[in-house]
């Protein structure tokens, strides 16, 4: 690069600096920003209108009533199903006793217990989970 080029570059730098020197926001930028922030702060601090509060309360009450109703229906269904199950088992008690005796005779009581225990635990687990109870919490795990 010769001296003429260097001089041209220096001149270009000066012109570019001058060209961009005035590049700034309009006067009053801070005041406009302060007004914007104050407006946002006021919006945040403003309490909800009474009508909105009442609407939210009504929606909350409706949702609570719906959950209560659903829980009652589910409880009733479970009770009916449980009663039906007990009655069915009651009807089959002689046959079940006969089957149990035959199985015990052929395989031994330990094998029956070995098979029935996991089944009982799984059943219990499913019932507890259904009522949002964590079985691990019951045994302290």
């Amino acid at each position: 690069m010769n001296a003429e080029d260097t001089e041209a570059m220096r001149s270009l730098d000066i012109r570019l600096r001058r060209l961009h020197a005035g590049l700034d926001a309009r006067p009053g930028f801070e005041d406009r920003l302060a007004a914007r922030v104050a407006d946002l702060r006021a919006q945040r601090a403003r309490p909800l209108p009474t009508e909105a509060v009442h609407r939210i309360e009504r929606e909350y009450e409706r949702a609570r009533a719906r959950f209560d109703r659903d829980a009652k229906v589910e409880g009733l269904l479970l009770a009916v199903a449980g009663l039906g199950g007990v009655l069915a088992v009651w009807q089959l008690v002689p046959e079940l006793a006969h089957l149990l005796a035959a199985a015990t005779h052929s395989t031994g009581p330990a094998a029956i217990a070995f098979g029935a225990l996991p089944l009982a635990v799984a059943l219990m687990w499913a019932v507890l989970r259904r009522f949002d109870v964590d079985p691990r919490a019951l045994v302290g795990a």
Partner: protein
Amino acid sequence: MDEDIVDLIRAGRHDDALARLVPAYRRRLFGLAYGILRDRAAAEDVAQEVFVKVWQAMGSYDGRARLSTWIYAIARNAAISALRKRPRATSLSDPDVSAEAELAEASSQAPESDDPQLWRLVETLPEKQRQVVTLYYQEDRSTEEVAEMLGLPVNTVKTHLHRARARLAVALAASEEWAA
């Protein structure tokens, strides 16, 4: 300066932090937004929006990134988002006509300048070169600071600056020869 602002943010004194932040960053954010948008009113809107966003997000600033890096990232995103939302004034298929229309639009938004010839030439630079030139010459910034503002490597900024100056020098020499 930034350390004092960070202390105020950590102390939960967000309004005080904003009061210190605005004079320190106003020109930088305006320049950054202007470099991307090439429109003074839009750049000012974006700068205001960035300060509001920063003020609202001060509670979540954890100090892992430098304050300036954090603010510049918010500013770049806001400016790019504003650019995307802006409707295109021209949808011309002829690139020459389109470029001329863009130049006319840019000239109409140029700040009061006593060097309109150079302003027009700057406007014809490729986008990144134009952004680098704007930020570098706006406040005599270092290439390191421009790199941080644009989220680019320093060497990339140096390359853009070198190419832009060379291009402007050639264009100026040609236009002066033509005028003579």
